[in-house]
């Protein structure tokens, strides 16, 4: 089925309507990767990209809109591959987090619940719950880890409360990731990498 709406439209919708409430991505980097100016994360990009498109389409759509179904179908084919269970990186956690939220909005709450579970496990395997004050990484990289962790924490604990299910998140003393900073995002620049 040929697309009559350019993908850019959905990307813009995502950042206009969704991202401002749930800032789990770094917009300048995502756009730079989308435009081919920055290298895309291997393996995990297709999943993240299609979830972003699905959410963007969903934000734009009226009740009859089926545009996001198209991207959801692409996501379904991608997540059939075992790689989401057999690898771990920040992009995948972001994708799973967004995918969880999307499936809940599309009235599949238990699917969303499962995706959250996988996202939390993956996040722990990447140490996203830890601050590592001595780690020599950039402030941006550090801040993105915190954004994803705390976003995940809020979504997962929120889902547990909503569904009346146990909260399976680390105890307070185990997590030491700092709170997210309250700062403006930087403007887009070409050739952006981490």
């Amino acid at each position, binding site marked *: 089925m040929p697309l009559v709406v350019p993908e850019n439209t959905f990307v813009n919708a995502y950042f206009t309507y969704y991202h401002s409430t749930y800032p789990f991505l770094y917009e300048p980097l995502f756009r730079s990767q989308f435009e081919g100016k920055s290298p895309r994360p291997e*393996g995990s990009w297709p999943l993240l990209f299609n979830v972003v498109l699905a959410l963007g389409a969903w934000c734009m759509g009226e009740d009859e809109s089926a545009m996001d179904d198209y991207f959801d179908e692409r996501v379904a084919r991608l997540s059939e591959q*075992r*790689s989401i269970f*057999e*690898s*771990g*990186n*920040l992009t995948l956690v972001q994708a799973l987090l967004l995918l969880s939220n999307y499936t809940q909005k599309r009235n599949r709450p238990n699917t969303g619940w499962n995706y959250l579970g996988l996202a939390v496990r993956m996040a*722990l*395997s*990447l*140490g996203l719950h*830890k601050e*590592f*004050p*001595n*780690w*020599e*990484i*950039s402030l941006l*990289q*550090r801040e993105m*880890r915190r954004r994803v962790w705390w976003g995940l924490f809020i979504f997962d604990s929120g889902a547990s409360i909503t569904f009346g299910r146990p909260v399976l998140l680390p105890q307070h*003393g*185990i997590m*030491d990731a700092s709170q997210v900073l309250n700062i403006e995002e930087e403007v887009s620049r070409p050739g952006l990498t*981490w």
Partner: protein
Amino acid sequence: MTRNNLTAAEDRVCELENAFASLFPGTDLDTVLSSSRSGNLVNPARNTATLSAKKPPTEELKEQENRDASPALESLPREADGFDWAENAVRLSELSDGMAALSINPEGAGYLGGCYKVSWSTKSR
């Protein structure tokens, strides 16, 4: 009949050992029993000299958490994506016992925190 008596006796001993361990954590039961046989029963609550030198499990766990809070500098990966891992590629490895992925090399093996020691004050069965 005899078998039932033995089982009941074993169950009771087990219950008593568990209660003792809960009441006097870190105390070695054998030490207390031999002190009793020699007519010099030591009260584990009072005499700290006969206690095995172990802190209560919860305190030791907290200390381990504090140690774990800041791992040594050299165990952190170089890059921000250094904790990334992928186990879906077919890899031939000398170690085939399934533990090959849990290497101490901080690149590509996921985040590994300090091991939590669990102090068992009852004897293992």
